[in-house]
């Protein structure tokens, strides 16, 4: 009970600190807000990018057409060769007969056309379907396969999708850097705000020490003040991300441009966004004030 009352006293001091230098507090809060809006944006973006790259990864395969004159042993050698390449997860062989049968099964038109060909005259080619682990390296794998003997033609995905993945990747990296820089600025600003509070309370601190307040009792309010700044700074970003994303999601009917790029359902990521933003805000605030207390409130 006693500890609870002491804690209450500390917290009320912290709030007084926030409002005493309100313009400074506001600067810190705004900086945290801007940072966290970006953080929220990058979290949502990376979830979406990750989501649709895995979607694409599932489908995106390299199709390797083989020379018509290839022998069966050569096919086996080639298959193992490709299988042992870096970044290759799986190689499936499709003989031209199988492909022909598949096509015939698909529609009657195909069926009638394809049935005119015998095993000898089959215009189709034997092929491999190659899957990769990392979609970003799919081009390299394709290039390498192209260089192999008895390989006629190598095709993969739609170039535009690959480009898109790359662009998102760059956007992601830029936001990470921006967020890191902003976090640093924010820590500095919070730390500066707390420093000013400490300085404007020199006399109180001095008297507190004289009348027997412990170090932690003196320090705690300043520490909490940073946490309060971080928390307040997280509120707008949380609301902005939540309502903003739900709005965009509904507006775009859950997909970006085409059905190839589905958006992640808001209900699947909003709890993560909210917890991350509040968490980062509080940690940044706590760290900033910790720094100031260490530096400017020497015992």
């Amino acid at each position, binding site marked *: *009970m*006693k*500890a*609870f*009352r*002491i804690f209450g*006293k500390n917290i009320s001091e912290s709030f007084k600190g926030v409002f005493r230098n309100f313009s400074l507090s506001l600067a810190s809060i705004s900086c945290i807000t801007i940072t966290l809006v970006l953080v929220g944006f990058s979290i949502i973006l990376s979830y979406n990018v990750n989501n649709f790259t895995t979607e694409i990864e599932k489908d995106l395969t390299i199709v390797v057409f083989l020379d018509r004159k290839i022998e069966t042993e050569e096919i086996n050698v080639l298959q193992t060769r490709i299988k042992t390449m870096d970044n290759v997860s799986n190689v499936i062989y499709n003989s031209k007969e199988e492909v022909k049968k598949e096509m015939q099964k698909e529609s009657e038109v195909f069926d009638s056309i394809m049935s005119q060909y015998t095993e000898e005259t089959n215009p189709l080619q034997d092929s491999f379907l190659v899957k990769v682990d990392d979609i970003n390296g799919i081009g390299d794998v394709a290039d390498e396969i192209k260089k192999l003997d008895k390989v006629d033609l190598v095709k993969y995905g739609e170039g535009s999708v690959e480009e898109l993945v790359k662009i998102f990747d760059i956007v992601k990296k830029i936001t990470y850097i921006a967020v890191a820089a902003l976090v640093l600025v924010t820590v500095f600003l919070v730390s500066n705000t707390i420093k000013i509070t400490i300085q404007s309370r020199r*006399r*109180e601190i*001095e*008297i*507190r*020490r*004289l*009348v*027997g*307040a*412990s*170090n932690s*009792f003196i320090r705690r309010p300043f520490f909490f003040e940073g946490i309060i700044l971080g928390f307040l700074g997280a509120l707008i970003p949380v609301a902005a991300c939540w309502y903003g994303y739900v709005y965009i999601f509904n507006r775009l009917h859950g997909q970006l441009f085409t059905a190839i790029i589905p958006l992640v359902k808001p209900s699947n990521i909003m709890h993560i966004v909210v917890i991350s933003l509040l968490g980062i805000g509080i940690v940044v605030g706590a760290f900033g004030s910790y720094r100031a207390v260490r530096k400017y409130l020497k*015992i």
Partner: protein
Amino acid sequence: MQLIELRNVNKRYPNGVTALADIDLEISKGEFVFIIGASGSGKSTLIKLLYRQEKPTYGEVFVGGINVAKLRNGKVYKLRRKLGIVFQDYKLLPKLTVYENVAFALEMYGLKGDEIRKRTIRALEQVGLKDKLRSFPDELAGGEQQRVSIARAIVNNPKVLICDEPTGNLDPDTSMEVMKVIEDINKNLGTTIIMATHDKDIVNRMKKRVIVIDKGLVKKDIQKGRYRNESV
């Protein structure tokens, strides 16, 4: 062991000034002690050693059983809770009322609201300021402000009240008023009083123990002493 003991205490400041040399002192519970001496003789330094504002260069300081010289920074508050300290410049917070200034010294104990109220009012009663609860420091006369700071110093029932020139800014009549308050605290509450002062009149009228400091040494230690010509 006495309430306060100094053994072979020396204090040399980083700038090379030796403020105290070889001080041996004992003060028992309930005593009223004046510390007098010329300006720069080391009175304030001696007092600062008692509440651990300064550490002795060597020697031992005991206050209420605490080895003050060895006390770690993080534990200084334990010593301060046994002391009340009064300064020449009062050190009141201008934005707080009289009541709040006194209650300020109870904040860190986590007491219940009515307990804080009871103790604060009692301390203000003791210094005769019960009717000024809601005034701000700048609305009070100097003597009243000093009484507020005394109330703040005693609100936690300290064993020792340490005063460094508490009447330094006050005229003779007001000084005597404040001295009356301090004497009452000594008599009624049994609080030990240690007071550094320049004021001859006060020392002569009170007839208490007088310790004369001269150039960092205890020159005289007189029971029921008078402030003669030895210093100042």
